[in-house]
């Protein structure tokens, strides 16, 4: 029997333990047994991947971009959640603000989430630039309340929304997952409205180095993709992890973040 693949993941909530114990159990009956190791932040996890301590890292999009940078593009993405292929950043303001689009932010204050959050900080600035807004055109209020976890906890995004409520900012940028978590604009009609939605982009993926042979990776990916939302044994794990189906990665969905990291001079390391 070959030794189990070791998957790294960042423990941004205690439920990560439940999720990975469930996934490990699912893989337990072969042919691609696995175990997992948890890290407190993505920097530590990518270091461990590069050091060969883990075979596969469950990375955010920023961790992926940084791994690509550090490996000269040698790493590869194995799979991701269906929800990772259609991630979005949402720009919201108080209802009735009539910002009308990103241009409406000129001269206004935009609250951003943690600086290492692709969805709530890096990509929003990129979108502003794309809309022709320079660094002096929008006053950025940066809220770094969950640095290291790449915005996974959503805390900085909630703080950004609070800043809008408290009139410390005119608008906030957040990931679609946080927007969903607060019930979009349906639970609190009259509180927030969306004035711009980004194109979809790719978020997390399972990242491996070339040292992981296809022979070992392929059965693992095949078994992962076979998890079935309609199977009552699999469903709770998939629900907790926020997906219906594991899919092959959508690589062109990372282009915008590569561009953003380059133009903002974000370092490939931590």
């Amino acid at each position, binding site marked *: 029997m070959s030794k189990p693949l070791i998957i790294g993941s960042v423990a941004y*909530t*205690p*439920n990560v*333990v*439940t999720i990975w114990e469930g996934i490990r159990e699912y893989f337990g009956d072969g042919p691609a047994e696995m175990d997992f190791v948890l890290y407190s932040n993505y920097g530590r996890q990518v270091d461990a991947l590069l050091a060969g301590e883990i075979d596969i890292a469950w990375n955010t999009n920023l961790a992926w971009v940084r791994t690509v940078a550090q490996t000269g593009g040698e790493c590869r993405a194995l799979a991701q959640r269906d929800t990772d292929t259609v991630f979005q950043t949402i720009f919201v303001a108080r209802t009735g603000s009539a910002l009308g689009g990103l241009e409406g932010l000129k001269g206004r204050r935009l609250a951003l989430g943690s600086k290492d959050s692709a969805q709530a900080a890096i990509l929003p600035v990129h979108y502003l630039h794309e809309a022709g807004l320079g660094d002096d055109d929008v006053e950025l209020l940066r809220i770094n309340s969950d640095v290291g976890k790449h915005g996974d*906890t*959503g*805390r900085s995004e*909630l703080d950004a*929304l*609070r800043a809008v*409520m408290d009139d410390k900012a005119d608008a906030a940028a957040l990931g679609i997952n*946080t927007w969903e*978590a*607060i*019930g979009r604009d349906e*639970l*609190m009609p*009259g*509180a*927030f409205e969306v004035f711009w939605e980004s194109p979809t982009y790719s978020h997390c993926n399972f990242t491996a180095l070339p040292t992981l042979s296809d022979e070992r990776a392929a059965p693992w990916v095949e078994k992962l993709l076979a998890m079935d939302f309609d199977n009552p044994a699999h469903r709770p794990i998939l*629900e*907790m992890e926020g997906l219906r189906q594991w899919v092959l990665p959508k690589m062109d969905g990372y282009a915008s973040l590569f561009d953003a990291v380059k133009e903002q001079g974000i370092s490939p390391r931590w």
Partner: protein
Amino acid sequence: MVSPLLVLDLVERTGPLPLGATVAVPLDGSDDDVALVTAWCTRSGNSLVEVIDGVATVRRGPSPDPYADLDPDQIPGTRLWIYTNFDCNLACDYCCVRSSPQAERRALGADRVRKLAGEAVDAGVSELILTGGEPFLLPDLDDLVAACTAALPTTLLTNAMLLRGRRLEMLRRMDRDRLVLQISLDSPTPELHDRHRGARSWERAVAGIRTAQADGFRVRVAATLEPERFSELEPFKAFLDDLGIARDDQVIRALAHRGVADTGLELTVESLIPEITITADGVYWHPVSADHDDQLVTRELFPLADAIAEVKRRFVAHRAKADAAAQWFPCA
């Protein structure tokens, strides 16, 4: 207008929680807030445990299945207990409903029993259990039993003292295929049994068991024991084996501190899995408490389905609270 900050608080406070753990979220007290928390929980797959004094307790993830730990026949509403009457020819010193020859009859009557049996079928009940007092004191017991056995498999509890003459004739008219007799017997020799249940009652109970068996009835024996006697059950079981009582029909339970019993297990609504119980006075949580208002569910016997739904609702609420409490005070 509800406060959007409340939703932000909910997301932030539940996010770091392990599944199943709970957190208290203060509300500003308006009904809108409660509606908002409810809507958010539904949408986000979390559960609202309760709102007390303006503080919502929210559990991460769905409510655990309140029936998960129960055997299928323990699910409330599966069995229905019916107290036919409260008077009794005996006056046992541990009787949980204070029955005796002096106790008022408080009979349900054939009409209500028939109606209950009919509604029980529709409400999904799968077994009826008739008890008292001593049911054989009722002159029309055979009618009551016939109404029950026509509807569902039925168990009839008796002390078996009275299986003679006219009452034996009543027994013989009952449906052997649908009726089990459950007879009380507390020990393999007279001494202990008689001490609690009266002189010569052991001898007559054993004779009653034999009579019922001889007439082709399946007999279950139920013993009520002080908790300390649970360590010496083998001689009793051997005696019951010899009497021809199948092991599955040997029911041994602990004495409850109810009725005239001055010791025994303390049983509260919170600690008892409900066994819905109907008496002439109302619907009770459990047969051991059928004479105690602390476990009265409602005075309305009908519609039976409503009473069952109310017991289930309370049970789910108790479970949710207990689970939440377990999360509040984790073992160190």
